[in-house]
Structure formats: C-alpha cells, structure tokens
C-alpha cells in the first residue's frame, strides 16, 4: 500500500513540488502519469525512500517514511521495493545470474541461488542465466531486469517507463508481465509513464487501476 497526504518535495533550486494525495491498497495498481519534468521520478524516489519529503506524510508498505536513518532506509528499500528502471542497467561485466545476485549483495544478505533460479523461471528466462547482457534481446533483458526487481519479493514494484521504445504488441506484453508478476507477489504496482498504451493495457487486466497525473514542476513556487 501507498498512502500520502500533503506530500511535498523541495528541490535544491528552491522550487517545491506538491503531489496530490494517494491511497493505493496493497496489491493495487497506480498509473503515474504526466509529461517529462512533471515530477514522476521525484515521486518514485520519495516512495522508494531515497529522498526525504519536505512536507506531508508518506506511508509505503506499512512503513511511515521519513525519520528512518539512512542505513535503515536502505535495508527497508532492499526488502520492500522492487524497481524496474527505463534504462535497465544490467551490468555488462556480469552474467544474467550474477546481475540478479547483485540484489543480494546490495541488500547485504547471503546469496540465495534457488531464489535466483525461481525468479528467472517465473519470468521465463532461466535458460539465459549464464549469458551476458550483450547477448540478450531487448525483451529478454527487460525480463531479466524484472526478475532482479522482484527477487527479494518486494511489497511495492515501481516501473519507470517500461514500454518506452516498444511496439504495441510488446508494450502490451510488458504491461501484462508487470501486472501478473506484481499480482503473484501481492505487490502494489506503480507504473510511471506518459505512454497512453499502458493505461489501455491495464484496463483490460484490472478494474482497480488508480491514476495520479502530475503537472509541470513550477519554477520558484508550489504546484497546486
């Protein structure tokens, strides 16, 4: 679940961005829309506990964010947040299996190879475990990145522009994959996008999709 009230973030430039309140239940789906520069990435970073809100309250996966120490925040994020970036950032030096193992390294916990195998199996890419990212197609790479994102069985799955540069068919597949993966985990799914196809695809999958449309970041003022 994600609940926010009066959430604001102050940039170093002095501009402050105010976000509409949201209340997404655990297992729900939130479509985060808005043009480039509207604050989608900032909202994702707030939800992931990477940056502190300047005002308001934010509760994610049962945890009130803000006030947690840096180390505790990192540990909480490792356990509760899965993240699929637009640019997948699979390390070219590592095999698919090793890229997934990075999640355990980052979390500072012992590597669980069975969990890695299970995640790769669930995403249908188990046979690619020993390949390097350069040997993967775009779709395969996205599945591997998603396997990495859900490896720790997060309670919130954040996806940033997952359909960018995909054709219609693959975009629909990608959205369905995200939705089914999040459903299988019981995770709250947040998709940040300005691609209208994502909303259309989600309508066919779930009737409980919430939308949060952000405006442009004001310069020197507070957004309404």
């Amino acid at each position, binding site marked *: 679940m994600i609940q926010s009230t009066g959430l604001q973030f102050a940039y170093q430039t002095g501009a402050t961005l105010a976000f509409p309140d949201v209340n997404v239940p655990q297992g729900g789906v939130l479509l985060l829309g808005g043009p*480039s520069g509207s604050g989608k*990435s*900032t909202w*994702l*970073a707030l939800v*992931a506990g*990477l*940056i502190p809100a300047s005002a308001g309250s934010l509760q994610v996966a049962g945890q009130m964010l803000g006030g947690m120490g*840096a*180390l505790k925040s*990192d*540990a909480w*994020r*490792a*356990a509760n*947040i899965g*993240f699929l*970036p*637009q*640019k997948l*950032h699979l*390390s*070219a*030096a*590592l095999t698919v299996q*090793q890229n997934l*193992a*990075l*999640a*355990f*390294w*980052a*979390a*500072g916990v012992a*590597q669980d190879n069975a969990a890695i195998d299970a995640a790769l199996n669930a995403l249908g890419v188990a046979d690619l475990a020993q390949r390097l990212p350069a040997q993967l197609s775009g779709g395969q790479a996205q599945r591997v990145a998603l396997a*990495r994102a859900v490896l720790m069985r997060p309670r919130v799955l954040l996806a*940033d*522009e997952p359909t*960018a540069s995909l054709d219609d068919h693959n975009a629909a597949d990608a959205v369905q994959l995200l939705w089914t993966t999040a459903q299988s985990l019981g995770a709250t799914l947040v998709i940040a996008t300005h691609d209208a196809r994502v909303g259309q695809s989600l309508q066919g999958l779930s009737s409980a999709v919430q939308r949060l449309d952000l405006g442009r970041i004001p310069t020197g003022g507070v957004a309404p």
Partner: protein
Amino acid sequence: MKTLSLSWRYLWARPLAALLNVLLLGLGLASITFLLLVAHQVERAFDRDLAGIDLVVGAKGSPMQLILSGVLHLDVPPGNVPLAAVNALQKHPLVAEVIPVSLGDNFQAYRIVGTSLAYPAHYGAALAQGRLWSAPMEAVLGATVARKLGLRLGDTFVGSHGLGAGGHAHGDSAYTVVGVLAANASVLDRLILTDTASVWKVHEDHASDDEDHKDHTAVEEQREVTLALVRYKSPLAAMSFPRWVNTSTEMQAAAPALEVTRLLHMLGLGTDVLRAFAGMLLLTAGLSVFIALWNAVRERRGDLALLRMLGAPPARIAALLLTEALWLGLMAALLGLALGQGFVLALGWLLGLGQSLLLGGALWPAELLWVPALALGVSLGAALLPALGAYRSDVLQLLQSR
C-alpha cells in the same frame, strides 16, 4: 556474491585498462623493489665480508681499490707489497692478527687466493668435504666454485694468469683439490683458497720458464703478497696504526669502515636519482589508476545508482571501488616484486656480479614489505576520489535521465 569477487569482475570488464594500470603501477614498484634489493644485498655483502677486518694494508694507490680487490674481490689490486713488510706488521704491539692475501691467478674466472689457514677461520668456514691445505699446490674450493665447476676431491686444475678469464695458463703447476668448503654466504664461496706458497711457486716456475734460472735466495728476498688483512688488539689502534702504516712504511692502510661509507655515499647519489625516477613512475601510475577508476565511476554511474536503488548503502558502493583499487594494487605488487627480482638477477648477470654474490638470488628481506604497502597506498589513494563519487551516486539523477 562477495564484494571481492564483484570488484574483480568489474575490474576485468575493462581488461586493457586493467592490464595497463597493473603494468604501469607494477613497473614503478619493480623499480622500488630493485632499489631495495640492491641496497640490501650490497650492504649485506659489505657487512658479511668486512666483518672483523679492521684494516687492509697493501700497495699504495686507491684505498677503495684495496678494499674492493682484497676483501670483496671485485677489483684488481693496486700492486704487491713485500712479504717482509707484512711480517713486520704482525710484530706491531697493536696488531692481533695479520692474514696475508696473494692474488694474481684465476681458474675459469674464479680467483685463486694464496693465504694462510687463518683466512677461512676468520670467516668461520666449515669443510663440506676433504680437508684444508697442508702443502703448496693443494686447493680448497668455495662452495659456489665447486658447484659451478663440478670439481671434486682429487681433481687437478691449472690456474691462469690474471684475475679474470682469458689469461695464459700456468701449464706446469697444477693444483689438486683437497677440500670443499660448506657454503657460508661469504666471499669464500666464490674463491679458490690455497697456501700463499702456492702462488709464489706458480709464479716462480713461470719466471723460471721465462728467464731460465734465477737465484733462489734472491727470489726468497723478493717474495711479495698482495695485501694483508689486519685485526687490532684494541679498537684504540684505529687512532694511530693506519697513520703509522702510511707514514712509516711503503704500504698503504685502508680502513674498510671508512671506505665502505664513502662507497655507499657514492652509490647513494645514484640511488637517489633512481628513487626519484621510481617515485615519478609511481606517481604516474597513481594518476593512471585514478583516471581509470574515475572513468569507471562515470561509465557505471547508472549501475551504481541502481545498486543504491536495490538497497546498497553508499559505503558499500564506495567499498566496491576501493576493493577494485586493492585488486589493482595487489596484482601490481606481485608483478613489481617479480620484475624487481628479475631486474636484480639480470643486473647481476650482466655485470658478472652473480659470482660475487653481491647481487642475485631470490632474497626477500623485510624491507620488501614496503612494496605491497606502497602499492596499496598508491592504489587506495588514487581510488579515494572516485570512491567518494560512487558514495555520492545521485539516484534521483538516474531516475530522471532517459
């Protein structure tokens, strides 16, 4: 996956850069290794071979030449001195012991040293085989000589004139091997020892060949030795005895302690230049490592930010960079040590110093601990700023970048 294995994989993701950095850092460390080894071995050789010798007395000339030729057996002697004059030294009240040393011949570039039994005793030599000489033309081989030349007890050989290979052979005067010394890591290992009378006999035979007959008594009176190693009864003798030799005899006194200090000072000037050169190499290598790691952080900015997103604390990410630098330092240290040892061996071989035992051999003195310490210091120092950059990876910037 452990930080060590992860950083190893990241390091070799750019194999050429990694290799060049290891090579550059390794060359700087090899120079340091070389300097440390040379300094250690030269000082060790001096300490070992000069121990217990208070004064060297020989023909007038360069005192350093006297020390280098008569004690370290690295140079040719300035000349000979009368045996009678050396015997007179023994009678001086300040002198405890005089060991005569006669040079002039070699066998396959190993010096034949005519001396007394006090000479091997002075260096604490022990016999590995056979016995010490008891008559002229009996020879006792140093351990290295015996090993290199393959001579055994009972074998005979003929010396050649001069102190290096290539002189004419003293065909009629053959030495018989009666003993082989155990290796004792002193100058004895590379010498062939015999009685002083052997040297006289060989050269008198030779002179007879050349000049037909010569009056035996006259020969006796003209007998010479090359130099004498002197041990004082009291350290106070150092105050007056050398001056007495220099002013009251036709001989020259050279104090090993003074001459070696002078030699080390001269060597030190060269060493300082080499050390500065090695320092420049290390600095260059450090800069190269810095640039490589800085670029690595720039190239991997997204990857590092993603690691933050996956929950890695900034310190763990910085540690990843530092560990990468540690790997570089470790490999460079190993390469530097190996190359440095190789350089010393090569120098010893090129200068023919291998036989002198001044240089060569795989020695691992404690000073070499400086090499890994320097390697880690340079690599970690070069990694500090890049690690700080990694520590400060801006995840928000990653999320905002498309």
